[in-house]
């Protein structure tokens, strides 16, 4: 039988995993088991997740922790929650200490991402805004600057490698690019440093894409920053290629159920996980559009065990029961849930070194509480 690309999986939580993040060398993982706590596991270099040990529990939030990110540069954790708060955690004296973050949002926070250099982070919130926070030494807190201009809940944010452009996916069906230049953190970039030339003022809307006909649930930049992709809830994947000041968009409306989380494995490959419970690989063809290549999870071709024949009456009874519960006469084993994930995949992350140009190891978590490790 053909081997599935999954190397290992484990039930980390019974209630689902709402967010996860790896540390820089991928030896530790922080997850939220669909509660207000964050659990940190170590020993994650071991390919078997059942050997990982839980070393810390962070319990500062009051409601569901919806986003976690771990900066490989500063080793700080940032968590955001439906309780409208975010915390930045620093590891000191063998424990994680939270720092105050002034987010200034009056609705839930949905997603949080550190910028590539770890000096600031952006939070996608249901308050139709994206606060971008940086550290203020004089008061020992993280203070926010708001990016508005969204018409509805912002579902995901993604930083460009140049540390200044921010991509947002919103439930008003649009994907937008903003400048998130914070002068306290960095210098202005010269012309040609990215798709939009020289540094623009903070919060300036640089581009808007409306190819999706559903919520834009996930957004991502390619490793070089010359491409961006966003997945819409209308089962679409749009990729925009930048050449100088020109942008070219290609939309693929595919046959599968929608994707919830996408990432670039390299410039020409996108991995997406979503409602199929099965990560899908999309690769670039000659014209620059991305087409569905394969699903990572494959059914093993081992034959289903033959049902024992127990007599005419039992068989007839089973047939009628099957007709009423499943709508078909026989209990076909191929209809049962065969994928490694038994519920929606909500997050796909890389297990290779941060910023790697070609990712071959990924991890997926979902509403079923499982973490599955894949090798491409």
């Amino acid at each position: 039988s053909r081997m599935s690309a999954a190397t290992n999986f484990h039930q980390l939580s019974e209630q689902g995993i709402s967010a996860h993040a790896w540390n820089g060398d991928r030896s530790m993982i922080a997850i939220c088991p669909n509660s207000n706590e964050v659990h940190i596991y170590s020993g994650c270099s071991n390919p078997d997740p059942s050997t990982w040990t839980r070393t810390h529990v962070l319990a500062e939030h009051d409601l569901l922790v919806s986003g976690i990110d771990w900066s490989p540069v500063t080793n700080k954790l940032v968590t955001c929650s439906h309780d409208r708060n975010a915390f930045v955690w620093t590891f000191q004296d063998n424990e994680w200490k939270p720092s105050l973050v002034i987010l200034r949002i009056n609705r839930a926070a949905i997603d949080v991402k550190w910028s590539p250099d770890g000096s600031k982070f952006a939070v996608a919130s249901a308050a139709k805004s994206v606060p971008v926070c940086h550290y203020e030494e004089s008061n020992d807190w993280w203070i926010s600057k708001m990016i508005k201009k969204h018409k509805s809940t912002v579902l995901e944010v993604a930083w460009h490698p140049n540390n200044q452009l921010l991509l947002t996916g919103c439930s008003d069906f649009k994907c937008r690019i903003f400048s998130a230049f914070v002068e306290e953190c960095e210098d202005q970039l010269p012309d040609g440093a990215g798709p939009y030339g020289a540094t623009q003022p903070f919060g300036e809307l640089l581009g808007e894409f409306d190819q999706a006909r559903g919520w834009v649930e996930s957004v991502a930049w390619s490793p070089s920053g010359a491409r961006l992709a966003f997945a819409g809830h209308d089962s679409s994947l749009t990729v925009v290629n930048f050449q100088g000041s020109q942008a070219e968009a290609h939309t693929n409306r595919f046959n599968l159920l929608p994707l919830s989380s996408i990432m670039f494995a390299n410039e020409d490959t996108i991995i997406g996980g979503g409602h199929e419970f099965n990560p899908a690989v999309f690769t670039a063809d000659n014209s620059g559009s991305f087409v569905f290549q394969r699903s990572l999870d494959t059914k093993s071709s081992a034959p289903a065990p033959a049902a024992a024949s127990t007599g005419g009456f039992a068989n007839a009874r089973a047939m009628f029961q099957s007709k009423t519960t499943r709508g078909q006469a026989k209990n076909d084993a191929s209809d049962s849930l065969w994928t490694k994930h038994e519920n929606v995949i909500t997050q796909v992350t890389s297990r290779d070194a941060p910023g790697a140009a070609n990712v071959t190891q990924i991890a997926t978590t979902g509403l079923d509480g499982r973490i599955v490790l894949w090798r491409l």
Partner: protein
Amino acid sequence: PGRIWVKTPQLIQFIRQEVRRRDPMSSEEDLKASVTARAAKVSSMLSGDKGAALRTALADPPVTSKSAETKALNAVAVGDVITACGDGEIEAIIEGLSDTERDVLMKYLYKILGDVGQCDKSGQLLKWHSKLLKKTGMGAVVRSMTDRKTV
């Protein structure tokens, strides 16, 4: 796929003004007229190539129309082609449709199935649905649910 301009706020405003100025189909009367003309054309094609008739009916649906009657008129044209086809012809006709046309057909199947007044067609529609689903997968069904521009 095509080249698009990077949409700055100024460009978005300009595009909106231009669309309002140039679009000949923006008025309800024009949309209704084109739908009526299309319905007549489709009826005349029903005796001949049914695949071409369906493609004519599915081309350019009046999604921008705010009138329920105009949309219903187009749905009737599509429904007429569907009921005119025999069971053996369904797969071949679906095969000849493009991906966009299949998405639009899925939307119309759900629209007509949802119309209680046309429940006599439901047997035929369900046959079309299962054959179309085999071809398009669940993506077309998701799109018929999420797309704000309804047929």
